[in-house]
Every structure is written in C-alpha cells, then in structure tokens.
C-alpha cells in the first residue's frame, strides 16, 4: 500500500518533469507541442551567453550559500542542542527558526534595507563603494538555508543520547575530541541533507534574489521570471533538463563518495 503510494507520488512528482524533458527535444516553437525531434533548443541554449552566465552564477551562488548555511546552521543547531544554557538562548532559538516563517517577500525586503544601510555605512566610514550583487544573494540564501540546516541538525542531536558524549568525556576525552569523534560524525548525515536542501532552496529562489541583487546579479530563476514576456520557450525546458542532469550527476558522485557512511539518509 505504502509502496503503491510511493510510486504514485513519484509519478506525480516526475510526470511534469518527464514531459518537460521530452518536449525539450521538440522542434516546435511553442512549448509542449510536438514538432518532430530536434536539438535546436539545446543548440540555442549553447549559444545563449546570458543564460549560461546566469546559470553559472546560480550554481556558484547555490554552492556558496549552501556551504555557508551548513557551517553556520550546523553550529547553530549544535548550539541549540548542546550549547547548554547561555545568555539569549530563547532569542537564539527564535532567530534560528525565523527564516523558515518569514515570507520570502518580507525577508527579501528587510534584507535589502539592511544591505542598503550597510552600503551607506561602508561608504561614509571606510570610503568603500560596495555593490549589491552575487555576494548579497549568497548572504540572503545562506541565511534562509541556515534555518533549515539548524533545524535538521538540532533534531538529529536531540535524538542522540547525551550519555554517549558524557561517557567519552568520563573516559578522559577532551571536549574537542568528543565533538570531533562523536558529535560531528553523528551530525554529518543531517549536514549533508541540509546542504542539499539549502542548495535546492537557493537554486529555486526568485524573490530573495530579485530583492537583494544588484547589477550583474541576475540568477537563472530571476532571468527566466523576468523574461516571461518572451513566453516560455522550449529553451526553458532544455535548460531544466540540463540543470537536472548536472545536479543529478553531482549528487550521484557525492552519494558514491559517501556510500561508506551506511547509506542512511538520517
């Protein structure tokens, strides 16, 4: 029964994607109309420097943001689960979860205000003319991803029996050694999951990026969203296929490298 629903659910998730992938090879100018097999949209993509630039920017922003989110979010999740009592802990917990609930529109807007303020401060105090651009998008996406990573890590550590760590400490392990040999390895699966989640969120985001970006900060989703007036061309389908294949390959490699870790998603 559960398996049937898994198959149905995967079908629901994949049907539009397969359709999209299939019609990426259609010659017709109107998407989702079959006009004979053709690679013209992939060729068009290969010639479209704007799209390539944006795709490259998107992938690097997503990688940077996911990595930052993993570092900061991993620490935040650890601090919430194992940091003990410290000043401002309730506030910390609230803030770590806030990006999950802030509507993107609101978060984008408030971050924009902050960056503008920071730009002003940098110019008057340091004489620097900072630009909004890829960097601000990375910060915004990392903040969003941080919340997801923190939640995953915190949940993971909450289920980890603290006595395991206490036992190691009792046996004379330094706190750092306890962390590195016991806590961190237990965090790894949730960090990997969190990285993927943060990467995905970043790759998908239109709203945050369009708020906080500046010149030459057009990520792929923003570019497509803003060129909707050209209509959805099959080029967009081709692009979806290319990204999907790229990311799947990357995940496949990562999975293969990590396969020693027991293949346990939790």
């Amino acid at each position: 029964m559960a398996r049937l629903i898994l198959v149905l659910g995967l079908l629901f998730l994949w049907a539009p994607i397969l359709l999209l992938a299939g019609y990426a090879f259609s010659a017709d100018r109107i998407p989702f109309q079959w006009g004979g097999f053709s690679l013209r949209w992939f060729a068009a993509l290969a010639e479209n420097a704007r799209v390539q630039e944006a795709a490259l920017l998107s992938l690097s922003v997503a990688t940077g943001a996911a990595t930052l989110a993993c570092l900061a979010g991993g620490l935040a999740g650890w601090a919430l689960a194992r940091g003990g009592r410290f000043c401002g802990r309730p506030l910390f917990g609230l803030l770590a979860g806030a990006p999950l609930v802030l509507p993107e529109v609101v978060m984008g807007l408030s971050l924009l205000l902050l960056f503008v303020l920071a730009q002003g401060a940098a110019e008057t105090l340091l004489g620097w003319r900072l630009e909004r651009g890829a960097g601000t998008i990375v910060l915004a996406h990392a903040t969003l991803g941080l919340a997801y990573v923190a939640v995953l890590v915190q949940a993971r550590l909450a289920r980890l029996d603290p006595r395991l760590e206490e036992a190691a400490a009792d046996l004379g392990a330094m706190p750092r050694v306890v962390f590195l040999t016991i806590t961190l390895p237990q965090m790894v699966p949730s960090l990997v999951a969190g990285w993927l989640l943060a990467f995905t969120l970043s790759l998908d985001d239109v709203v945050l990026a369009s708020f906080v970006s500046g010149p030459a900060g057009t990520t792929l989703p923003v570019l497509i969203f803003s060129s909707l007036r050209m209509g959805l061309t099959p080029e967009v389908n081709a692009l979806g296929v290319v990204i999907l294949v790229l990311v799947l390959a990357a995940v496949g490699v990562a999975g293969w490298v990590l396969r020693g870790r027991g293949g346990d998603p939790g």
Partner: protein
Amino acid sequence: MPLRLAFRLAFRLAFCLLLLLCGALLARPLAAQPVLNVYNWADYIDPYMVQRFQAETGIRIRYDVYDSLETLEGKLSSGRSGYDLIVPTSEPSFARLVRAGALRPLDRARIPNWANLDPGLMARVATVDPGNRFGAIYLWGTVGLGVRVDALRQLLPGARFDQLDLLLNPENAAKLARCGLAVMDSATDVLPSVLRWLGKPPDSTAAADLRAAEQALLAIRPHLRAIPGSGALLDMLARGEICVAMTYSGDVIQAAARAREAGRGVEIAYAAPASGAHLWFDLLAIPADAPNPEAAEAFIDFLLRPESMAAITGHVRYPNAVPASRPLVPEAVREDPSVYPSAESLAQAFVPGTLGPAEDRARSRLWNRFKAGR
C-alpha cells in the same frame, strides 16, 4: 585516528573557504575598465546596439532586465541600486522618481543628439518633468486592445476593434468569455482608459468617478479569464488563449509576430481606442547615485542617433521619438499603423496627469477589489 584527521582537514578547508568568501564579498569592484550598468525592460533593445557601443567606446555594459515597473522601483527606491541607466515609464515611475529626487539631471552638453528628439513628444512628458531635465524619450506607445481576429470574425462579426466597448460592454464580454478575455494587471495603465471610456477625466480623483470605473470593471470581472502581468499576457495572446486583451501596443504587435511565426492560424491585431488612447513614454534616466553617469550619458547619446533608434524600433516594434530615424526603420514596421499611430489619433490621445500618493493608493486598493471580484 584517520577519521578525526579527515574531519580536522575538512574543517580547515571549510574555514578557508569561508574566509575566501568573506574576502570576495568585501572586495571592492575593480575599476580597471569603465563599466556601465544598464537596467532596462526585458527584450527592449536590439542586442547588436549594446555590442556596437562597447566596441566604439571601450565601455563595458552590464545589462540587466526587469519585467515590471515594480521591480525597477523596488530596486531604485531603496537607494544605491548601482545602476547608471534606467528606463522607467513616464507615469507612474518616472514621475515618482523625479518627485522623490531619485534622478540626476541630464547634462545636455554631453548629449548632442538630444537635438534629434521630437519636441512635440517631449512636451508631452514635460507635464511630469518640467523642462525635460531628467529624461529623454526612449520608446513610447499606447494602451489598447489586442484582438484575436480569426476567432472574433466568427463570434462577433462586424465588431469594431478600436472601441473599448468590445471588452468593457458586459454584453460583449459575456459573448466572448468562452473565447478568453484578459486585462493586464496594472491599475495605472488600465484605469485611465476605463475612466475615459466612461466619459470621465482619465486622472479623476473624484470618488464617484472611481466608483463608476470600479462598477464597470466589476461588471466584466466574471467574464475575465485572467488578470496577468503584461509579460504573461503577451505570451497568452501569442498562443491564442486570449481573444481580447487590454494591454500595451508593442506587446500585442510582438505577440502577433510570434503567432504568425508559429503558423497555427492564430491571427492577432492591435487597435488603440479611436476616441483617444492612453499614451505612455519610457524614458532614459540616470539615478541620482549612479556610479558612472558620464558613461550613461554617452550611451544615451549613442541611442539617440537615428541609426540606433531605427534598429531598435525595427527590432522591438515600438515607435521612438527621433523623427530622423523613421526613414531608416524597416518598411513593414514603418508603415504599420498600429506601431506608428496616425497624426489624428495621436492628437486624440491623452497623457494622464500625476496623482498624489493617497490617490495612488486609493486606486490600487480599488484595483485589488476588482481583482478579487468584490
């Protein structure tokens, strides 16, 4: 212990990465080659013009696009956008930016081609920008109806397309509902025409007039298939999903070209209301805090050359304000009356006046109610 070592290594690596990232974020942009940051509507230029300017001047252009005035204003109104050249529409964005002091006066000494601009059209913009200090007309157009001619021939034979009655008369709307009706999602660009159709002043702030406009819109609301952004509307028109749509002239003309290209028997035509169409202008302007205004002025001068403007109009099918460019525009576009309106329809056309913030908000709330159908 190899595992521990591996983790320590990974940690160091991650830390270095973090440092690098911070460094990259804080690094000041290198000022080796002059850079011009342009922010224009999507698909609103002949891309060859950008290349040519770069080749001629050695200034590198970073070209970003937006799909709605909201996006532009959102970027601009917070300040320090980083853009050197923007292309806001006269009403409401350009007018608002002028009043907010967000634009930099143009130095006409650096823009000799300013003399190419049509004084009659520039005078129309002077209502929001006295003395034309802040903006030069890039392209302009009207608001009217995009019509799917092949479908309408069967449904409403003999109907006139150059009347808003086609859409705003509830009887017609009911007949056409199945075929698909749409209004673009823009209070500022739809309400003036509706008010004019009702015989009221297009920039009226009288509560009774606005209520009448709201009633008129609500009467056709049940028959509307969609109230999309103008970009999405263009696409729907081109695919033949919409029979009558109220939107921008150039969008309809682009949709018509695309429908022809697709060759599926969808025939689209544009008609501006004969009784007087809403006229709008997109202006070349420089933000007050632009990092490189000189380059922006050089680009404006370049764009105002007749050859440049002719190429752009030929490409995007919106008329420009440089009369000397007209003979250079490809004939199919030059002779198309829906691109270049006739002299008498231009005389009939109106430019709505500026509204205060409170009136503006009242209108957008009216629009919200219309969209919700209440």
